[in-house]
Protein backbone atom coordinates (compact mmCIF):
# COMPACT_ATOMS: atom_id res chain seq x y z
CA UNK A 1 0.00 0.00 0.00
CA UNK A 2 2.16 2.87 -1.13
CA UNK A 3 -0.76 5.32 -1.28
CA UNK A 4 -3.72 4.18 0.78
CA UNK A 5 -6.16 7.06 1.36
CA UNK A 6 -6.80 8.09 4.97
CA UNK A 7 -10.44 8.36 6.01
CA UNK A 8 -11.42 11.93 6.68
CA UNK A 9 -12.90 11.00 10.02
CA UNK A 10 -9.46 10.12 11.35
CA UNK A 11 -8.40 13.75 11.13
CA UNK A 12 -11.57 14.87 12.83
CA UNK A 13 -11.22 12.35 15.60
CA UNK A 14 -7.60 13.34 16.04
CA UNK A 15 -8.71 16.92 16.42
CA UNK A 16 -11.35 15.79 18.90
CA UNK A 17 -8.74 13.94 20.92
CA UNK A 18 -6.46 16.95 20.95
CA UNK A 19 -9.35 19.16 21.98
CA UNK A 20 -10.29 16.84 24.79
CA UNK A 21 -6.69 16.79 25.97
CA UNK A 22 -6.72 20.58 25.92
CA UNK A 23 -9.83 20.57 28.05
CA UNK A 24 -8.17 18.11 30.38
CA UNK A 25 -5.18 20.37 30.71
CA UNK A 26 -7.48 23.29 31.37
CA UNK A 27 -9.35 21.45 34.06
CA UNK A 28 -6.52 19.64 35.82
CA UNK A 29 -3.58 22.00 35.73
CA UNK A 30 -3.05 24.76 38.24
CA UNK A 31 -0.32 26.74 36.56
CA UNK A 32 -1.81 29.67 34.66
CA UNK A 33 0.68 29.34 31.85
CA UNK A 34 -0.06 25.67 31.38
CA UNK A 35 -3.76 26.40 31.39
CA UNK A 36 -3.15 29.03 28.79
CA UNK A 37 -1.21 26.56 26.69
CA UNK A 38 -4.08 24.11 26.98
CA UNK A 39 -6.30 26.76 25.44
CA UNK A 40 -3.84 27.11 22.59
CA UNK A 41 -3.97 23.36 22.17
CA UNK A 42 -7.75 23.50 21.85
CA UNK A 43 -7.46 26.21 19.25
CA UNK A 44 -5.03 24.07 17.30
CA UNK A 45 -7.41 21.16 17.41
CA UNK A 46 -10.16 23.32 16.03
CA UNK A 47 -7.83 24.54 13.30
CA UNK A 48 -7.13 20.99 12.29
CA UNK A 49 -10.81 20.29 11.79
CA UNK A 50 -11.17 23.54 9.84
CA UNK A 51 -8.42 22.51 7.48
CA UNK A 52 -9.87 19.02 7.20
CA UNK A 53 -13.26 20.32 6.19
CA UNK A 54 -11.63 22.71 3.79
CA UNK A 55 -10.05 19.66 2.19
CA UNK A 56 -13.42 17.91 2.13
CA UNK A 57 -15.09 20.80 0.31
CA UNK A 58 -12.01 21.56 -1.80
CA UNK A 59 -12.21 25.22 -0.80
CA UNK A 60 -9.68 27.40 1.03
CA UNK A 61 -12.23 29.03 3.34
CA UNK A 62 -11.25 26.64 6.10
CA UNK A 63 -7.66 27.75 5.79
CA UNK A 64 -8.74 31.33 6.11
CA UNK A 65 -10.75 30.59 9.22
CA UNK A 66 -7.83 28.87 10.85
CA UNK A 67 -5.70 31.81 9.78
CA UNK A 68 -8.06 34.10 11.66
CA UNK A 69 -7.92 31.76 14.62
CA UNK A 70 -4.15 32.12 14.61
CA UNK A 71 -4.39 35.89 14.53
CA UNK A 72 -6.80 35.90 17.42
CA UNK A 73 -4.58 33.44 19.29
CA UNK A 74 -1.62 35.77 18.79
CA UNK A 75 -3.53 38.74 20.16
CA UNK A 76 -4.81 36.61 23.01
CA UNK A 77 -1.30 35.41 23.84
CA UNK A 78 0.05 38.95 23.89
CA UNK A 79 -2.63 40.28 26.22
CA UNK A 80 -2.89 37.12 28.30
CA UNK A 81 0.82 36.90 28.94
CA UNK A 82 0.87 40.56 29.85
CA UNK A 83 -1.90 39.85 32.33
CA UNK A 84 0.03 36.89 33.70
CA UNK A 85 3.09 39.09 34.14
CA UNK A 86 1.02 41.64 36.03
CA UNK A 87 -0.56 38.98 38.20
CA UNK A 88 2.81 37.52 39.00
CA UNK A 89 4.14 40.97 39.81
CA UNK A 90 1.31 41.58 42.28
CA UNK A 91 0.74 38.10 43.67
CA UNK A 92 4.11 36.36 43.22
CA UNK A 93 2.24 33.20 42.22
CA UNK A 94 1.07 31.46 39.07
CA UNK A 95 -1.37 29.03 40.66
CA UNK A 96 -4.84 30.00 39.57
CA UNK A 97 -6.36 28.66 42.77
CA UNK A 98 -4.47 31.25 44.73
CA UNK A 99 -5.74 34.08 42.53
CA UNK A 100 -9.26 34.00 43.82
CA UNK A 101 -9.99 37.33 45.44
CA UNK A 102 -12.92 37.82 43.05
CA UNK A 103 -14.62 35.00 44.86
CA UNK A 104 -15.19 36.97 48.01
Amino acid sequence: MPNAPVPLSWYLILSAILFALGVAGFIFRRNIITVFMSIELMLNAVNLSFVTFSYEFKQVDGHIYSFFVMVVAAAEAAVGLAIILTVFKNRATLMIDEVNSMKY
Partner: protein
Amino acid sequence: MTALIFIVFAGIAVFCAINLVVQTHPIASALSLIGVMGSLAILYLQLGGEFIAAAQVIVYAGAIMVLFVFVIMLLNAGAEAVSFQASRFVRYLGALLLAAFLGLISLIIQAALPKTEGVLFGTFQGTALDVGRKLFTTYLLPFEVTSVLILIAIVGAIVLARKEV
Protein backbone atom coordinates in the same frame (compact mmCIF):
# COMPACT_ATOMS: atom_id res chain seq x y z
CA MET B 1 2.44 6.64 2.25
CA THR B 2 -0.23 9.14 3.23
CA ALA B 3 -1.58 6.79 5.87
CA LEU B 4 1.92 6.17 7.22
CA ILE B 5 2.67 9.88 7.51
CA PHE B 6 -0.67 10.49 9.12
CA ILE B 7 -0.23 7.72 11.68
CA VAL B 8 3.28 8.81 12.57
CA PHE B 9 2.52 12.46 13.05
CA ALA B 10 -0.87 11.96 14.61
CA GLY B 11 0.89 9.70 17.08
CA ILE B 12 3.49 12.37 17.77
CA ALA B 13 0.76 14.99 18.18
CA VAL B 14 -1.24 12.90 20.63
CA PHE B 15 1.85 11.92 22.57
CA CYS B 16 2.97 15.53 22.84
CA ALA B 17 -0.50 16.64 23.87
CA ILE B 18 -0.62 14.05 26.63
CA ASN B 19 2.84 15.13 27.63
CA LEU B 20 1.61 18.72 27.79
CA VAL B 21 -1.07 17.71 30.25
CA VAL B 22 0.99 15.43 32.47
CA GLN B 23 4.30 17.28 32.55
CA THR B 24 4.69 19.27 35.74
CA HIS B 25 7.09 21.81 34.33
CA PRO B 26 5.78 24.62 32.11
CA ILE B 27 8.81 24.51 29.83
CA ALA B 28 8.23 20.84 29.16
CA SER B 29 4.60 21.55 28.42
CA ALA B 30 5.54 24.39 26.12
CA LEU B 31 7.98 22.24 24.17
CA SER B 32 5.47 19.46 23.81
CA LEU B 33 2.93 21.98 22.58
CA ILE B 34 5.46 23.04 19.97
CA GLY B 35 5.75 19.39 19.03
CA VAL B 36 1.97 19.23 18.58
CA MET B 37 2.05 22.29 16.39
CA GLY B 38 4.86 20.98 14.25
CA SER B 39 3.15 17.68 13.60
CA LEU B 40 -0.11 19.47 12.92
CA ALA B 41 1.73 21.56 10.35
CA ILE B 42 2.79 18.36 8.60
CA LEU B 43 -0.81 17.18 8.63
CA TYR B 44 -1.89 20.51 7.14
CA LEU B 45 0.58 20.00 4.34
CA GLN B 46 -0.92 16.59 3.82
CA LEU B 47 -4.37 18.15 3.62
CA GLY B 48 -3.13 20.58 1.01
CA GLY B 49 -2.88 23.59 3.28
CA GLU B 50 0.68 24.54 2.48
CA PHE B 51 0.25 28.21 3.28
CA ILE B 52 -1.56 27.50 6.51
CA ALA B 53 1.13 25.01 7.46
CA ALA B 54 3.81 27.63 7.03
CA ALA B 55 1.72 30.13 8.94
CA GLN B 56 1.22 27.55 11.66
CA VAL B 57 4.94 27.19 12.11
CA ILE B 58 5.76 30.87 11.75
CA VAL B 59 2.98 32.34 13.86
CA TYR B 60 2.34 29.64 16.42
CA ALA B 61 5.63 27.89 16.89
CA GLY B 62 7.76 30.82 15.86
CA ALA B 63 6.06 33.71 17.61
CA ILE B 64 3.43 32.72 20.13
CA MET B 65 5.29 29.85 21.70
CA VAL B 66 8.51 31.82 21.78
CA LEU B 67 6.54 34.37 23.74
CA PHE B 68 5.38 31.67 26.11
CA VAL B 69 8.88 30.30 26.58
CA PHE B 70 10.13 33.82 27.08
CA VAL B 71 7.58 34.50 29.81
CA ILE B 72 8.24 31.17 31.48
CA MET B 73 11.93 31.92 31.56
CA LEU B 74 11.30 35.47 32.70
CA LEU B 75 9.15 34.39 35.63
CA ASN B 76 11.42 31.41 36.09
CA ALA B 77 8.26 29.44 36.77
CA GLY B 78 9.09 26.26 38.66
CA ALA B 79 7.24 22.99 38.59
CA GLU B 80 3.82 22.80 40.20
CA ALA B 81 3.93 21.78 43.83
CA VAL B 82 1.26 19.09 43.51
CA SER B 83 0.44 18.19 39.94
CA PHE B 84 -3.08 16.75 39.89
CA GLN B 85 -4.45 18.81 42.76
CA ALA B 86 -7.87 19.53 41.31
CA SER B 87 -10.94 20.94 43.01
CA ARG B 88 -13.34 18.53 44.65
CA PHE B 89 -15.94 18.62 41.92
CA VAL B 90 -13.37 18.20 39.22
CA ARG B 91 -11.54 15.33 40.82
CA TYR B 92 -14.61 13.13 40.69
CA LEU B 93 -16.25 14.23 37.48
CA GLY B 94 -13.63 15.70 35.19
CA ALA B 95 -12.13 12.57 33.74
CA LEU B 96 -15.51 10.91 33.39
CA LEU B 97 -16.96 13.94 31.61
CA LEU B 98 -14.02 14.10 29.23
CA ALA B 99 -14.33 10.45 28.33
CA ALA B 100 -18.02 10.91 27.61
CA PHE B 101 -17.27 14.04 25.60
CA LEU B 102 -14.67 12.35 23.46
CA GLY B 103 -16.81 9.29 22.91
CA LEU B 104 -19.81 11.35 21.87
CA ILE B 105 -17.83 13.49 19.47
CA SER B 106 -16.19 10.55 17.74
CA LEU B 107 -19.56 8.81 17.62
CA ILE B 108 -21.18 11.80 15.96
CA ILE B 109 -18.27 12.22 13.58
CA GLN B 110 -18.44 8.60 12.55
CA ALA B 111 -22.19 8.75 12.13
CA ALA B 112 -22.64 12.15 10.59
CA LEU B 113 -19.69 12.34 8.23
CA PRO B 114 -20.54 11.72 4.59
CA LYS B 115 -18.72 8.62 3.49
CA THR B 116 -16.51 10.33 0.94
CA GLU B 117 -13.19 9.11 -0.40
CA GLY B 118 -10.36 9.58 2.04
CA VAL B 119 -7.49 12.02 2.02
CA LEU B 120 -4.83 11.55 -0.64
CA PHE B 121 -1.89 13.88 -0.70
CA GLY B 122 -1.95 16.20 -3.68
CA THR B 123 -5.60 15.87 -4.62
CA PHE B 124 -6.25 19.37 -3.29
CA GLN B 125 -3.79 22.25 -3.00
CA GLY B 126 -4.90 25.41 -1.23
CA THR B 127 -2.03 27.48 -2.57
CA ALA B 128 -1.03 30.78 -1.04
CA LEU B 129 -2.46 32.36 -4.19
CA ASP B 130 -5.98 31.03 -3.54
CA VAL B 131 -5.82 31.90 0.14
CA GLY B 132 -4.64 35.40 -0.59
CA ARG B 133 -7.23 35.98 -3.27
CA LYS B 134 -10.09 34.84 -1.04
CA LEU B 135 -8.67 36.71 1.93
CA PHE B 136 -8.64 40.00 0.08
CA THR B 137 -11.96 39.65 -1.68
CA THR B 138 -14.52 37.63 0.25
CA TYR B 139 -13.00 38.04 3.69
CA LEU B 140 -11.67 41.56 3.32
CA LEU B 141 -13.73 43.07 6.11
CA PRO B 142 -12.92 40.38 8.69
CA PHE B 143 -9.30 40.71 7.71
CA GLU B 144 -9.28 44.44 8.36
CA VAL B 145 -11.14 43.92 11.60
CA THR B 146 -8.51 41.46 12.79
CA SER B 147 -5.88 44.09 12.10
CA VAL B 148 -7.77 46.43 14.40
CA LEU B 149 -8.02 43.64 16.94
CA ILE B 150 -4.27 43.17 16.86
CA LEU B 151 -3.74 46.88 17.32
CA ILE B 152 -5.96 46.80 20.38
CA ALA B 153 -4.07 43.79 21.69
CA ILE B 154 -0.74 45.56 21.28
CA VAL B 155 -1.96 48.62 23.13
CA GLY B 156 -3.49 46.51 25.86
CA ALA B 157 -0.34 44.44 26.30
CA ILE B 158 1.79 47.57 26.57
CA VAL B 159 -0.57 49.16 29.06
CA LEU B 160 -0.66 46.02 31.15
CA ALA B 161 3.03 45.26 31.11
CA ARG B 162 4.51 48.72 31.51
CA LYS B 163 6.02 49.42 34.88
CA GLU B 164 3.95 51.78 36.99
CA VAL B 165 5.52 55.25 36.98
